[in-house]
């Protein structure tokens, strides 16, 4: 039984995660067999409230809601009352009063989804808050890993890239630990957050060590503006010491796969030939994202505590 909201992976039990993945598999089977007008959420209303630019996550959530028969209200922050200075809580209460069942929020500040959830009665789904959490991204990553490997126990997952600014990395680390997988991470020192070792991950000393004998190699997006702020010297140097190349993927297990939350900077985090190889599950992740978002919307709105 899920709680009212989906705010992060930490507040889910292992059983919660596994039941979401099972529902996600059912959803994936349904949409892939052509059934795109399920009616589980008929007459329900889902609002997306995105304070940060996003096309893929927003579209994924909105399609997920529509496929389940829900009405979708899309609040674009750029031309809403938010720009006129309305507070997050006031915006949330307004959405609640137009009979919204669930609000999907993305926000640049960690804890914003919780602030909203604490102040509205409708369900809140966190689509990314600051550097904190991106639970549906982690869940879709888990669904992808489950599809490939069947389970998580003893799975070796390498996460490589800008760990410091990555809510995807944090949510993956939290969930993979619960599921029994082992996580190793690697990043330039300036993009490695303090105290991350206390979460139980292994910090690799080189990109080669991170890839060695891994089942999954997950690249993280690097925002190229960070180079201008001095966090790494150049794209060339980044690729040389931190890039996921064919040679490095070859160090992993024979049937290892490459994942990335996308959008990917081709030739930076991951070499183009790796992205286009059969090792890459980046596009499979997108479909699993739709499925897992359908699963959590349905489970929260119909089955979640309130």
């Amino acid at each position, binding site marked *: 039984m899920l709680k009212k909201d989906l705010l992060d992976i930490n507040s889910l039990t292992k059983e919660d995660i596994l039941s979401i993945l099972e529902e996600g598999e059912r959803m994936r089977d349904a949409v892939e067999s052509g059934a795109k007008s399920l009616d589980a959420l008929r007459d329900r209303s889902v609002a997306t409230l995105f304070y940060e630019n996003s096309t893929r996550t927003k579209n994924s959530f909105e399609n997920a809601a529509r496929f389940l028969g829900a009405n979708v209200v899309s609040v674009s922050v750029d031309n809403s009352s938010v720009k006129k200075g309305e507070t997050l809580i006031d915006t949330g209460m307004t959405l609640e009063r137009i009979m919204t069942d669930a609000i999907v929020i993305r926000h640049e500040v960690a*804890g914003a989804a919780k602030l909203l959830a604490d102040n509205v009665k409708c369900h809140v789904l966190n689509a990314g808050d600051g550097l904190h959490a991106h639970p549906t991204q982690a869940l879709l990553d888990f669904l992808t890993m489950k599809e490939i490997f069947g389970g998580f126990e003893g799975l070796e997952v390498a996460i490589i890239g800008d760990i410091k600014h990555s809510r995807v990395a944090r949510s993956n680390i939290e969930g993979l630990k619960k599921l029994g997988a082992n996580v190793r991470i690697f990043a330039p020192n300036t993009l490695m957050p303090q105290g991350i070792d206390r979460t139980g991950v292994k910090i690799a000393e080189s990109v080669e060590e991170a890839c060695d004998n891994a089942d999954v190699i997950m690249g993280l997006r690097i925002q190229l503006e960070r180079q201008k702020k001095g966090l790494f010297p150049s794209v060339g140097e980044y690729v040389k010491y931190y890039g996921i190349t064919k040679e490095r993927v070859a160090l992993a297990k024979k049937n290892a796969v490459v994942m990335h939350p996308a959008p990917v900077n081709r030739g930076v985090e991951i070499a183009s030939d790796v992205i286009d190889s059969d090792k890459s599950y980046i596009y499979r992740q997108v479909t699993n994202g739709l499925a897992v978002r359908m699963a959590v919307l349905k489970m929260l709105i119909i089955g979640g505590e309130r």
Partner: protein
Amino acid sequence: MKLLIKNVVVFGKECDIYVVDGIIKRIAKNVTYNADKTIDGNGLTALPAFVDMHTHLREPGFERKEDIESGSRAAVRGGYASVCCMPNTNPVIDNKCIVSYVVNRAKEVNLARVYPIASITKGMKGEELTNFGSVKAFGAVAVSDDGMPVTSSNTMRLAIEYAKPFGLPVISHCEDFSIADGGVVNEGYHATVAGLKGISRVAEEAMVAREILIAESLDSSVHVAHISTTNSVNLVRDAKKRGAKVTAETCPHYIALTDEEILSYDTDTKVNPPLREERDRKNIIEGIKDGTIDAIATDHAPHHADDKNVEYNYAANGISGIETAFSVAYTYLVRSGEITLKRLSELMTDNPANIMNIPYGELKVGGLADITLVDLDEKYTVDSREFFSKGKNTPFEGKELYGRVKTTVVNGEIKYDKGEIVR
């Protein structure tokens, strides 16, 4: 005005305190002189009323958060007879007119003594020096650009140099903005887990080091406000060993809380400098024990609920702390066995008053009758709805504390007694 406080504990012994016109005339058992007012001090302990060298009263300009009247009411409820208020008002307290305004307004309110601190630079812009001589002549007791640290090292050097002959303490809010880099909490494990941007301790420590070196080079003094880290304590300790004229304060929240509190995303935990880790908290207490830290100041920073009821990054920094300061310090320092009540009294009264060169109460014949009566054994749960301050922003909400202020006497007059302001 004659005041008699009966059967109160004064440094371990029960006796009566007799006050005439603001001066203690007698401390003895069974005093039977005539009095205009008598207080039954049975079960209570008398302390010299506290002196807060770091308060934000918000007036003029931010009266929605606090004003001189509400802040003064909060001060006496917290056991404070004197407060020094910071100049980050609107307009900034950077000239004799605003200094006079604060002084006069506080006199009208007539509860706690209020001593304005003027800014170091005009408008707290970090450029031209405030007229130190003139603001002092009209009642400013120190200078500080609290909250907007003087970025230019040379401007700070000139301020410390120029202030010396005026005898004006220079108080530095130590924060190197370039290192802080927009962070909102202490950098470390809890910031990483919460996904909130961290502030390196070095943002504070680098400027503590700078101020010490500047003051030392000029044989002048400097006071570092609200230090919160292990290495800030180490820097001040080493400087004092060398004979540098540096004094330091910390605040109750750095003694009692750590950055684990931020995991709730409760914006009442947002304060600058941020709550640190357990090892810092322990080293702050060590610094208090060995005399490195001279004073406990409240950094009372009241805010309107609207300033806090927003996303963590956008929430205002600060804790409304003047009404819980004694209880927090008593619970976490004295009750826990770290220091004696006498030492706490020095940290909260004598030392801050001496740094600011202002009068303070002393429990002796001839002493100024600024007296606070506390019930050391009373355990209570913090409820911000009871605050007299307009700011209800406290991370201590719902926490149990010991040692409650019952009565505050300023200059021989009862200003606060049993939950009420006395006029």
